[in-house]
């Protein structure tokens, strides 16, 4: 019990003193996850919006596949990206393996389907409501996409936050393609896993507390946005 208390005290010390090692790891984590969300957003939002407004043979299968990919295990995603980026892989000449770029790549692959699937759900219900009116304005499905994205802005911000939460909390993908190299590719989740197995509980705990605080902050933001969304959705 004393060990645990001592570990918490030491962890609090690391956070309060803004320990450079902790700070570096936190900053890299945020940088990787924010970049991954940005890239996945471009792909996921446009794909989800297009899927919401178009009807084509096999669309049902695409929707099911996207929904299934929402549950893609991070380690499997990491493995696939590893195979792509490894020396002998198709993208091997880029030399990205074991760099932060590889970690961004893997997290983007992990959350793009989540963003696409959730965007599709949100915008499909809007499209059902708007389609006739927008066609009356002379806008077919493709020209309606920007209108739908703008009207879904609050709901879609919540979607982006969900993606960020998933990206910042996963450990498997960044571990495999980043390699958990100290001072280079070590992020909060991989550091927690490593330090715990090494027995350095204060550092692991300090990072765990920061991670929890970030996830809590993201969820609080999502909650606030939802209130705003209902105001505009009427």
């Amino acid at each position, binding site marked *: 019990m004393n060990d645990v208390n001592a570990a918490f005290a030491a962890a609090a010390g690391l956070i309060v003193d803004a320990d450079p090692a902790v700070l570096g790891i936190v900053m890299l984590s945020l940088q990787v996850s924010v970049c991954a969300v940005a890239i996945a957003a471009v792909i996921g939002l446009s794909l989800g919006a297009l899927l919401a407004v178009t009807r084509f043979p096999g669309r049902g299968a695409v929707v099911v596949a996207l929904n299934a990919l929402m549950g893609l295990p991070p380690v499997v995603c990491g493995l696939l990206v590893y195979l792509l980026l490894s020396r002998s892989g198709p993208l091997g000449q880029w030399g990205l393996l074991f760099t932060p770029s590889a970690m961004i790549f893997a997290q983007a692959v992990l959350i793009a389907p989540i963003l696409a699937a959730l965007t599709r759900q949100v915008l499909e219900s*809007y499209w059902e*409501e*708007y389609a*006739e*009116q*927008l*066609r*009356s*304005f*002379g*806008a077919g499905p493709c*020209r309606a996409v920007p*209108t739908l994205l*703008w*009207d*879904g802005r609050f709901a879609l911000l919540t979607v982006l936050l969900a993606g960020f939460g998933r990206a910042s909390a996963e450990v498997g993908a960044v571990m495999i393609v980043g390699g958990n190299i100290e001072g280079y590719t070590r992020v909060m989740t991989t550091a927690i896993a490593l330090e715990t197995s090494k027995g350095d509980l204060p550092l692991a705990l300090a990072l765990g507390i920061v991670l929890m605080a970030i996830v809590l902050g993201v969820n609080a933001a999502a909650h606030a946005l939802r209130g705003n969304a209902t*105001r*505009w*959705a*009427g």
Partner: protein
Amino acid sequence: MRAPDTILPLTIEGLGFARDGQPILSGVSFIIDAGPPSIIIGPNGAGKSVLLRLLHGLLVPSAGTIQWSGIADPRPRQAMVFQRPVLLRRSVLANATCPLALAGLSRAEQLARAHAALELVGLAALADRPARSLSGGEQQRLALGRAAALRPEILFLDEPCASLDPAATQAVEAIIARLATAGTKIVMTTHDLAQARRLAGEALFLHRGRLLEQSPAARFFTDPATSEAAAFLAGALVW
């Protein structure tokens, strides 16, 4: 003198529409020309809403033709307001500018027209409110103003007062009358006879998917040509 680029008269010939093999409209022929409002009346299920959607191009006819006049593209010259207004999740003002932006107008022109339209429908003071927080009557007025801002030559209105209280109905009718006076051709469906009497220049009586009568309002309401129309006017149940 008719403006050379007008899209009226609108000539409909042998128009038919079926859904899942069930005929909803058949053999409908008439001509709509510029002038006072044309009111399409008839009992529920007569095919009034489907007829408007066909004319506006939202549905594709299964038979017959819809022929606009002139050489201008008829699409941007018409607008439609639906029974239940579909308002975007934006401010009142942004709802008015959206169709103008889609029509490719400059931002300055969008704002000028949108403000004028909100003035016309009495919503200028609510320009910054979320559109979906408006009352039912205000929402329908916004939908009317938004359509009017497009400056259509012909405006289709599908039961615009169906779910409104008398005061809101009166406000909407006043706007419709003003648009008609200003030269917009109104084509409107209603099952409310009193409203039809107040607004109609001519009446089109639709019954079981067929157009039974098209006559000037004065004649239709006093001396209908068909027994079905007479029964409908007398308040008898016709179907």
